[in-house]
C-alpha cells in the first residue's frame, strides 16, 4: 500500500457537476482491471481471469445500481450541507456587520418597517373588501353575486336587490346553478325592556347552508321546511360572537327564546366561530328568510305580499354555478331567466317602462361586494391608498438601497480584494442579499407591529363595519408581509449588487477607499431624485385631499348638523293607528321641548342623508314639474326652521298657527323657486301637491338651500308644508340642543322612551352621524395621504442628508484644498448646497410632472379642488426645496469649516 502522490478531495474536483454513475463505473473498472491483471500474472488465460473476477465480485449490475444510489444520496446531502454552511456563514457575517453599526441598523429597520407597515395596513383593509372569499364557502370559485345592469336616461345603473318573486323565478328558470341564495341583513330590536338593543340579524334562505356547509358549534341549522312561504318557522342560529358575549357561551341556550323584531324566536343552534356569512361582519344570528319577511312586512293583500310582489326589492342574491359551468354560459342562462322574470313583472304592472328601453343585463359579479360594480368611494380611495403605500415602500427601499450602497462603497477595497482572491461574484451577491434580507426581516417584524396598531385606526375610518382579524394570526397577512419583505430586500439589494457586478478590480485596489467613490455616486443621486420625486407626488396628493376636505367641511349644509338629533320611533309590533302615531309624535315634541338643554323640537318627514319623502307636484303654467327635478317634501311642525337652523331668506316661516282649516301654505327652497319660477317672485305662487284637482297652496316663504342627498352637487329642491295641513310620514322628530348632539342624544332618547307604549322604542342619532359617512372618503384620503406623504418626505430628507454628508466626507480632501487655497465659507456652502438643490430641483420637476400625469385619475375623488391647482403644486415644490436646503445645510457647514491641515494629512 503506497502513499498517494497527491490527494484531491472528491467534491473539490468536480464540484457542481459530480457525475455519480461515471465515478462508480471508473472505480469498478479499476477494480476489474487490477483483478484480471493479477490473475493473468498468475498464468490464467484472459477468459478464465475475466470469469474468475466476476465470480469474486458477485452481481455486478445490482452492485452498480446500489452504489449509484448511495452516491446520489451522499452528493445531495453534501451539497445541502454546503449550502447551509454558506448561508449560515453569510448570516453570521451580516449579523456581525449590523451589530457593529446599530444606528444604521435601527434606521433601516424603521424605514423599511414604515414602508412594509404601510403596505400591510392597506392589505389588511383591502383584502377582505376585494379579494378574500368569505370563510366556510364550499366552492369560492363557483360563487357569484347577481347584479342587474339597466339603462336609465343614458346612464347604466347596477342593481343588487331583488324581490322574493324574482328570486323564485331565477331559481326555477335557470339550469346552470347548483344553488341560489337570497339574503337580507337588517337591524332589528333584540331583547326586552331595558336590555333591548338594535342588532343586525340576517335572513337567509335555507339554501344558504348548502353554500356554507358548516357543522354548527351547537344544535342544528334550519331546513327548507322551516323556510317555507308564506310563514317560515321563527327559529334562529345565533352567531358565535353573540353567543359568547350575550349568552355567556353557555351550552344550554338551545330552546331558549329571543324577542327579535316583533316575533318570538327559538334558538336552535350556534354557528361556528368564523362563519360571518356574505357580509363583512358577524350578524347576531341567521333566521329563515321567510320568517324575516313575516317580521318585516305587513300582509297588504294579493300582489302586494312579499312572495307575490315584484316591486318589493329587498333581497340580495348569490348563486353557485354547477361545477364545470363557465361564468359566460351561466350568465347567458341567467340573462334569459331574468328577461322572463321582467316580462312577468311588466305583465302584472302595466304602464311600467318597456323592458327593451332598460337594456337589462344580468351579471355574475365577484362574491366580494366591493369588487362588484357598486363599489363604494371608501374602497376607491382605499385602492388609491394601496398605490400610495407602494410608493412609500419604493421610497423606503430607495433610501435603504442608498444607505447599503454607501456601505458597499466604503467596502470597495475589501470587496475588490476578495474578488481578486477568488471569491465568486455570486458568493458576494449572496452575502449582500443576505444582509438586505436580514434588514428586511427586521423591518417586516416592525412593520407588522405598526400594521396591527395602524390597521385598526385606519380600518375604523375607512370601513367601520368590517370585522378586524389579528394581524399576526392571519396567514394571508403573514404571507403578504413575507412577500413585501422579499420584494423590499430585492429592491434594496439591487443597487449594491449592481456595484459589485461592475466592480473594477484594479482601479479599486489601486485607489484609496475615498477616491473613486465620489465619481461612482451617480446611482445614489438617481435614487435620491426618485425619492424626492415620489415624495412630491404624495405631498401633492395630500394637499389635494386636505383641500378637498376643507372644501367639504366649508360647504354650507343649510342646517346645524352638530346641534340636532334625529329621534325615530320603532313600533315593534305595537298596533297604533296613523292618528295615534301622530299624537304620539306630537307628545314627543312637546315632552322634548320641556327637557333641560333643549332649544327647540319639530316633527319631520324627510331626514337629510337618511330618507326622502316625495309627492307628485302640479304648478299652473308648467307642463311637467317632475322634469325640472326631484322635489322633496318636508312636512313639519312650527318649530322646524328654528330647530334646524335653516334660514328663511324671503317671506315667513311656517308656524303652529298654520293648521287644517287655515290658509294652505308652503315654504320652498331657493333653488326650487329658481327651478319653477326663474326670475319671478315666488311669494304667492300656487302649487298643488299629489293631484292637479286639489286646491292651490300658496308660497309664503323661501328658505335657504340645504344638502340632503349629496355634499357635492345636491340640487336642494325642497318644499316645506305644515304637517297639520298635510299629515304624512309619522317616523320621528328633530331635537335641537344647546350642547353638541353627540353628548345629548342618548339623554334625550332615555327621557322620551318613557312616553312609548308597549314594545315601541326610540333610537336617537346626531344628525352629524348621518352625514359623517359622506365625508369619510375625503377624511381618509386627507389623513392617509398626509401621513404617507409626511413619511415619504421624512425618509427622503434623511436620504438627502446622508448622501450630502457622505459626499462631503468623500470630498474632504478636495474641500480641504479649496479652503487652504482661500475659498470662503460662503463659496464652500454654495458649492455643497448648490449640489443638493440641483438634485432637489430635478426631483421636484419630475414629481410635478408625475402629479400632473396622475391628475386625470384623481380628479373624480376630489371636491371642488383642481388636481392642477398651481398654488398646491407650487407650495409643495417650495416645501421640498426648503427641506432640501435644511437637509444639506448641516453637512455643508461642516465642509466649510474643515481644517485644511487635518483634511490633507488624513489621506
Amino acid at each position, binding site marked *: 500500500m503506497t*502513499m*498517494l502522490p497527491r490527494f484531491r478531495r*472528491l467534491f473539490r474536483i468536480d464540484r457542481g457537476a459530480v457525475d455519480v454513475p461515471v465515478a462508480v463505473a471508473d472505480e469498478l473498472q479499476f*477494480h476489474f*482491471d487490477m483483478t484480471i491483471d493479477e490473475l493473468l500474472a498468475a498464468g490464467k488465460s484472459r477468459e478464465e481471469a475475466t470469469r474468475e473476477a466476476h465470480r469474486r465480485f458477485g452481481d455486478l449490475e445490482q452492485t452498480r445500481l446500489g452504489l449509484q444510489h448511495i452516491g446520489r444520496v451522499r452528493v445531495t446531502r453534501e451539497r445541502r450541507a454546503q449550502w447551509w454552511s454558506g448561508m449560515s456563514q453569510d448570516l453570521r457575517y451580516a449579523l456581525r456587520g449590523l451589530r457593529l453599526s446599530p444606528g444604521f441598523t435601527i434606521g433601516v429597520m424603521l424605514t423599511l418597517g414604515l414602508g412594509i407597515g404601510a403596505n400591510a395596513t392597506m392589505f389588511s383593509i383591502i383584502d377582505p373588501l376585494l379579494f378574500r372569499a368569505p370563510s366556510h364557502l364550499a366552492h369560492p370559485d363557483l360563487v357569484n353575486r347577481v347584479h342587474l345592469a339597466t339603462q336609465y336616461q343614458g346612464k347604466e345603473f347596477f342593481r343588487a336587490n331583488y324581490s322574493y318573486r324574482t328570486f323564485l323565478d331565477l331559481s326555477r328558470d335557470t339550469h346552470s346553478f347548483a344553488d341560489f341564495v337570497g339574503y337580507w341583513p337588517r337591524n332589528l330590536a333584540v331583547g326586552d325592556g331595558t336590555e333591548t338593543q338594535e342588532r343586525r340579524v340576517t335572513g337567509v334562505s335555507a339554501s344558504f347552508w348548502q353554500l356554507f356547509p358548516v357543522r354548527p358549534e351547537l344544535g342544528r341549522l334550519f331546513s327548507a321546511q322551516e323556510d317555507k312561504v308564506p310563514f317560515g318557522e321563527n327559529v334562529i342560529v345565533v352567531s358565535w360572537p353573540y353567543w359568547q358575549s350575550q349568552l355567556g357561551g353557555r351550552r344550554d341556550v338551545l330552546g331558549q327564546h329571543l324577542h327579535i323584531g316583533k316575533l318570538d324566536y327559538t334558538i336552535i343552534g350556534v354557528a361556528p366561530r368564523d362563519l360571518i356569512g356574505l357580509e363583512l361582519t358577524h350578524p347576531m344570528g341567521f333566521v329563515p328568510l321567510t320568517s324575516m319577511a313575516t317580521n318585516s312586512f305587513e300582509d297588504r293583500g294579493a300582489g302586494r305580499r312579499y312572495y307575490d310582489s315584484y316591486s318589493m326589492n329587498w333581497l340580495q342574491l348569490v348563486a353557485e354555478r354547477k361545477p364545470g359551468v363557465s361564468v359566460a354560459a351561466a350568465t347567458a342562462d341567467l340573462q334569459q331567466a331574468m328577461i322572463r322574470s321582467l316580462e312577468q313583472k311588466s305583465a302584472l304592472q302595466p304602464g311600467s317602462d318597456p323592458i327593451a328601453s332598460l337594456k337589462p343585463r344580468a351579471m355574475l359579479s365577484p362574491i366580494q361586494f366591493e369588487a362588484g360594480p357598486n363599489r363604494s368611494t371608501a374602497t376607491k380611495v382605499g385602492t388609491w391608498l394601496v398605490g400610495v403605500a407602494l410608493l412609500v415602500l419604493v421610497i423606503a427601499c430607495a433610501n435603504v438601497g442608498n444607505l447599503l450602497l454607501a456601505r458597499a462603497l466604503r467596502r470597495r477595497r475589501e470587496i475588490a480584494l476578495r474578488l481578486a482572491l477568488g471569491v465568486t461574484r455570486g458568493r458576494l451577491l449572496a452575502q449582500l442579499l443576505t444582509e438586505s434580507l436580514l434588514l428586511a426581516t427586521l423591518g417586516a417584524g416592525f412593520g407588522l407591529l405598526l400594521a396591527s396598531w395602524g390597521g385598526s385606526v385606519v380600518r375604523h375610518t375607512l370601513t367601520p363595519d368590517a370585522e378586524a382579524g389579528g394581524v399576526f394570526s392571519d396567514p394571508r397577512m403573514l404571507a403578504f408581509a413575507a412577500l413585501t419583505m422579499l420584494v423590499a430586500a430585492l429592491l434594496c439589494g439591487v443597487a449594491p449588487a449592481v456595484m459589485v457586478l461592475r466592480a473594477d478590480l484594479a482601479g479599486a485596489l489601486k485607489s484609496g477607499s475615498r477616491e473613486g467613490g465620489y465619481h461612482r455616486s451617480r446611482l445614489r443621486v438617481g435614487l435620491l431624485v426618485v425619492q424626492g420625486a415620489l415624495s412630491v407626488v404624495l405631498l401633492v396628493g395630500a394637499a389635494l385631499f386636505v383641500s378637498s376636505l376643507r372644501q367639504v367641511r366649508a360647504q354650507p349644509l343649510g342646517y346645524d348638523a352638530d346641534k340636532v338629533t334625529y329621534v325615530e320611533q320603532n313600533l315593534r309590533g305595537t298596533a297604533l293607528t296613523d292618528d295615534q302615531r301622530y299624537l304620539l309624535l306630537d307628545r314627543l315634541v312637546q315632552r322634548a321641548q320641556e327637557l333641560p338643554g333643549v332649544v327647540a323640537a319639530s316633527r319631520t318627514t324627510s331626514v337629510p342623508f337618511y330618507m326622502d319623502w316625495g309627492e307628485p307636484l302640479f304648478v299652473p303654467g308648467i307642463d311637467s314639474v317632475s322634469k325640472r327635478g326631484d322635489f322633496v317634501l318636508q312636512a313639519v311642525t312650527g318649530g322646524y326652521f328654528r330647530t334646524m337652523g335653516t334660514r328663511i331668506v324671503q317671506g315667513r316661516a311656517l308656524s303652529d298657527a298654520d293648521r287644517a282649516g287655515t290658509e294652505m301654505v308652503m315654504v320652498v327652497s331657493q333653488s326650487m323657486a329658481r327651478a319653477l319660477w326663474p326670475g319671478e317672485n315666488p311669494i304667492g305662487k300656487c302649487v298643488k301637491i299629489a293631484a292637479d284637482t286639489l286646491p292651490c297652496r300658496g308660497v309664503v316663504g323661501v328658505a335657504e338651500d340645504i344638502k340632503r342627498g349629496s355634499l357635492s352637487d345636491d340640487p336642494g329642491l325642497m318644499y316645506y308644508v305644515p304637517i297639520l295641513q298635510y299629515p304624512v310620514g309619522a317616523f320621528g322628530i328633530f331635537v335641537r340642543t344647546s350642547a353638541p348632539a353627540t353628548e345629548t342624544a342618548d339623554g334625550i332618547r332615555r327621557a322620551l322612551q318613557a312616553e312609548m307604549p308597549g314594545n315601541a322604542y326610540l333610537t336617537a342619532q346626531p344628525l352629524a352621524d348621518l352625514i359623517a359617512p359622506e365625508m369619510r372618503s375625503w377624511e381618509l384620503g386627507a389623513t392617509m395621504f398626509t401621513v404617507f406623504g409626511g413619511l415619504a418626505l421624512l425618509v427622503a430628507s434623511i436620504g438627502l442628508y446622508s448622501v450630502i454628508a457622505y459626499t462631503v466626507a468623500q470630498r474632504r480632501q478636495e474641500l480641504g484644498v479649496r479652503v487652504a487655497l482661500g475659498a470662503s465659507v460662503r463659496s464652500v456652502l454654495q458649492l455643497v448646497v448648490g449640489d443638493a438643490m440641483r438634485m432637489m430641483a430635478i426631483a421636484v420637476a419630475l414629481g410635478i410632472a408625475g402629479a400632473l400625469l396622475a391628475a386625470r385619475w384623481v380628479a373624480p375623488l376630489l371636491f371642488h379642488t383642481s388636481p392642477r391647482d398651481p398654488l398646491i403644486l407650487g407650495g409643495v415644490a417650495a416645501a421640498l426645496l426648503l427641506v432640501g436646503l435644511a437637509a444639506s445645510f448641516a453637512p455643508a457647514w461642516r465642509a466649510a469649516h474643515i481644517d485644511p491641515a487635518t483634511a490633507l494629512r488624513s489621506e
Partner: protein
Amino acid sequence: MADLDLLQGTLDLIILKALIWGPSHGYAVARWVADTTGDDLQVEEGALYTALHRMEKRGWIAAEWGLSENNRKAKYYQLTSTGRNQLHTKTEMWNRYARAVGRVLQTS
C-alpha cells in the same frame, strides 16, 4: 469449513480495520480481506464496495481520487476520525460478543 455468513456489521468492522494502515483503494481492501481471512470468510467483492460507499455516506471514511501504484486513476478511501472511533467501539463490542459466545459454548 463451510462459508460463514457474515454477521451484521462485521463486514464494516473488517473494512475499517483494513484501512487502519492508511488510504487504500477498493481493490487493495479486497485483496487484504481475502489474504487475511484466507478461505474462512468468503466476502463477495460487490458487497465490500457497497459497504465502502455506505460508510463513505455516513462519514466514517472519506474518499479521494488519486493515482495508483501503476499510475492509474483510483478511488482511495481513508478513515475519518468518526471512522476511527467506530473501529474502536466495534472492535470492543465484537470481542465482548465473541468472548460471551465462546463461554456459552464451553459450558455445555
